[in-house]
């Protein structure tokens, strides 16, 4: 690849790429994000490669392996152009039909189309599917259009034009001002204004400055950072280069979770390509500006998503947070001025530079500008990644984009913000999503996790789940978090065993209060959120566990019983065979009986019963 020595040369190269693209040539984009790969997308790709070669037409059709398209529930996804047709749940066996029918004869393969669960209607085009219709995919939209490991694809979609624009005629101050004007706020959780952070780093004294990308996405149920790095690594990289230019940093780091090998690989490839093309390294695009980036793989500690702990970890030590009365922007990595931003924040930067702060600040709410990417998961029909303008209501997100609750069950709560966030009840579904509104109800935007819960989810169990997570991930440096978390967990375990007392609820609030006031970092300060919000919005569930010794959701083992309905039982023997303890007895074709003494509440019988004869109470 040729090294570009000026912004003009880059633009010339871009034109030559665009000229070379034959827009009439059919293309097949197979989503190979984590979800689709796990459902067999790689087998679909090899089937395409094999069959196109067998038919001798591989040269006429462009096959692309792309990053995550977001609609994980329907994967593996195959997008065909021209026409922007989306095929869902594609298997190897479908590939021959797709080639013969759609690619060669321009006919639709009906059985692979998305079926609207509400109307039963088949939908052909990606943009007409309700899941995509209400989204505003500014950052995430190019995932799926490009091969993430080919810089030319990124360039063909306008990539690195923001960097070229900056180097051609914007001074560092001007860039910072533009980001300030856009009113972009950090997407990692705290929502700190990005421009202000950059400005204080720029003003801080020091010859050596650093920029860091926080890609230690540890919140369970969040995978948008991963999908961006896997599917569009150059976008994040371009944002980092522009940030480094504006604050005067010469070295950058990206701290990626070690569980994300593909993100590490694709980002590293992007680094190499950018270096070869003169977009990274010495004298970027022929300017005086030089900048380099190192990839650091995380060690699997949730607390390292906290900025000061992350910095300590890059320094090669155990990831314990520091006191934050001095900001990282002044004294960060090796005590030097450092800008640390989340993946999504960096990814927003090129957009703002290209399209202007004014455009960006018109999207969203008064206080929260732009779009946010959420991982919509749990008991929702359309699991996946969604990008929406700030200010959209939870109801629109869950019921219109998300397609409602699985198996037509009743919505109970939505948990936002990961282990540090809270559970929001049905009564607040019209809440517009932004930093302030979610904080007001005791939750947070956080890194964008959104887990939908239905009537079969026990809220006390959910609180216990999050607390056991934060308690285990507490680094142990400060007492309130280390001890407070452990004791709250013990209380919750007692309650879910049916051994709780009413005064436990007061005790939970009291410990929460101490943790919020006195913990060193956000992990401890926010850890009580799931407990406090469930106590606030679902007090009756706690009381049912404590007073009536009942778990109405049928989750807490010590409080439930599995029952066989003699009316519905056909005596087929499936549960008898499946029971690991021999607790079920009964003759063939006679009603089966479950001995509660021997039952270990594994739920196997309920899972295998074909006649809905097993219930839980």
């Amino acid at each position, binding site marked *: 690849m040729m090294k570009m020595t000026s912004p003009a040369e880059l633009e010339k190269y871009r034109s030559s790429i665009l000229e070379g693209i034959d827009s009439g040539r059919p293309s097949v984009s197979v989503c190979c994000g*984590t*979800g689709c*790969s*796990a*459902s067999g997308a790689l087998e679909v790709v090899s089937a395409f490669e094999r069959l196109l070669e067998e038919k001798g037409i591989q040269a006429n059709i462009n096959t692309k392996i792309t990053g995550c398209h977001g609609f*994980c*529930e329907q*994967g593996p996804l195959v997008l065909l152009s021209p026409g922007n047709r989306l095929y869902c749940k594609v298997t190897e066996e479908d590939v021959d039909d797709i080639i013969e029918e759609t690619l060669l004869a321009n006919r639709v393969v009906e059985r692979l189309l998305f079926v609207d669960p509400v109307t039963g209607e088949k939908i052909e085009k990606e943009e007409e599917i309700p899941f995509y219709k209400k989204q505003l995919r500014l950052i995430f939209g190019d995932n799926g259009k490009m091969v993430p490991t080919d810089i030319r694809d990124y360039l063909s979609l306008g990539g690195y034009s923001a960097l070229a624009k900056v180097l051609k005629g914007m001074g560092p101050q001007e860039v910072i001002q533009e980001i300030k004007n856009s009113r972009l706020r950090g997407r990692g959780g705290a929502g700190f204004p990005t421009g202000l952070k950059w400005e204080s780093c720029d003003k801080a004294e020091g010859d050596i400055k650093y920029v860091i990308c926080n890609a230690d996405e*540890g*919140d*369970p*149920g*969040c*995978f948008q950072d*991963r*999908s961006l790095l896997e599917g569009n690594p150059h976008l994040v990289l371009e944002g980092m280069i522009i940030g480094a230019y504006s604050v005067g940093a010469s070295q950058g780091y990206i701290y990626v979770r*070690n*569980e*994300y090998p593909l993100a590490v690989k694709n980002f590293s490839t992007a680094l190499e390509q950018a270096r070869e093309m003169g977009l990274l390294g010495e004298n970027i695009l022929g300017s005086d500006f030089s900048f380099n980036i190192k990839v*650091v*793989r*995380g*060690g*699997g*500690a*949730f607390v390292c998503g906290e900025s000061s702990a992350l910095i300590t*970890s*890059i*320094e*090669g*030590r*155990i*990831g314990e947070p520091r006191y934050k009365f001095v900001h990282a922007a002044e004294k960060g990595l090796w005590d030097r001025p450092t800008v640390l931003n989340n993946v999504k924040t960096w990814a927003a930067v090129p957009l703002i530079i290209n399209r202007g702060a004014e455009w960006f600040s018109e999207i969203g709410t008064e206080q929260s500008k732009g779009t946010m990417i959420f*991982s919509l*998961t*749990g*008991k929702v029909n359309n*699991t*996946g990644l969604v990008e929406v303008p700030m200010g959209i209501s939870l109801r629109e997100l869950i019921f219109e984009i998300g397609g409602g609750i699985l198996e037509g069950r009743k919505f109970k709560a939505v*948990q936002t913000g*990961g282990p540090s966030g809270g559970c929001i009840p049905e009564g607040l579904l019209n809440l517009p999503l932004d930093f302030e509104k979610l904080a007001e109800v005791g939750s947070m935007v956080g890194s964008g*996790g959104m*887990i939908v*819960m239905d009537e079969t*989810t026990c809220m006390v169990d*959910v609180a216990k*789940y*999050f607390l056991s*997570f934060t308690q285990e991930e507490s*680094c142990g440096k400060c007492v309130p978090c280390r001890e407070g978390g452990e004791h709250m967990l013990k209380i919750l375990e007692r309650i879910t065993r049916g051994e709780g007392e009413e005064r436990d609820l007061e005790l939970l609030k009291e410990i929460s209060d101490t943790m919020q006031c006195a913990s060193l970092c956000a992990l401890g300060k926010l850890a009580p959120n799931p407990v406090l919000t469930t106590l606030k919005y679902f007090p009756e569930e706690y009381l049912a566990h404590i007073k009536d010794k009942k778990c109405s959701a049928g989750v807490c083992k010590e409080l439930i019983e599995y029952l066989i309905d003699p009316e519905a039982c056909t005596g087929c023997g499936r549960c008898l065979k*499946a029971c*690991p303890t021999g607790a079920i007895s009964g003759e063939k074709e006679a009603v089966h009986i479950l001995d509660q003494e021997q039952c270990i509440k*594994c*739920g*196997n019988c309920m*899972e*295998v019963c074909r006649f809905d004869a097993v219930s839980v109470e």
Partner: protein
Amino acid sequence: MTVDLEKVNSIIEKYRDDREAFIALLQDISAEYRYLPEEVIRYVSEEIEVPVSRLFSLATFYTSFRLEPRGEHEVQVCMGTACHVRGAPRMLDKVTQKLNIKPGETTEDKRFTVETVNCVGACALGPLLVYDGKYYGKLTQRKIEKLLEGSNDEDDQSS
């Protein structure tokens, strides 16, 4: 065990000029042996002149490091929130019952290591587990049964 110091030396050499890279160094060693053998940590400590306590503090703080050898097959049950609300705890119970070990342990015959993992980002497929790097989604207890027994059969035939 006898350690191939050649490999360790080349890993040490790779990070010779990187003052911050102890974690990366341990990650590479861990990738080589699938755990961190104590004698290797001691050897590295002497070679790079860093107190062994410093390396052990890293090895015990970060969850991706193991000080015990792992079994032939690795089973990681995802305990992320999305999987949790879709029944992951029951799936973990099934795996641990079936293999008769607790999460984090290895079976006596060294064939299986069971671990929990916080989230692998394939939430649409939850509950799920990762078996030797391959994802198995939309789990049921029966699927787990088949998966763990299937691997038995395969191995028995090949051995």
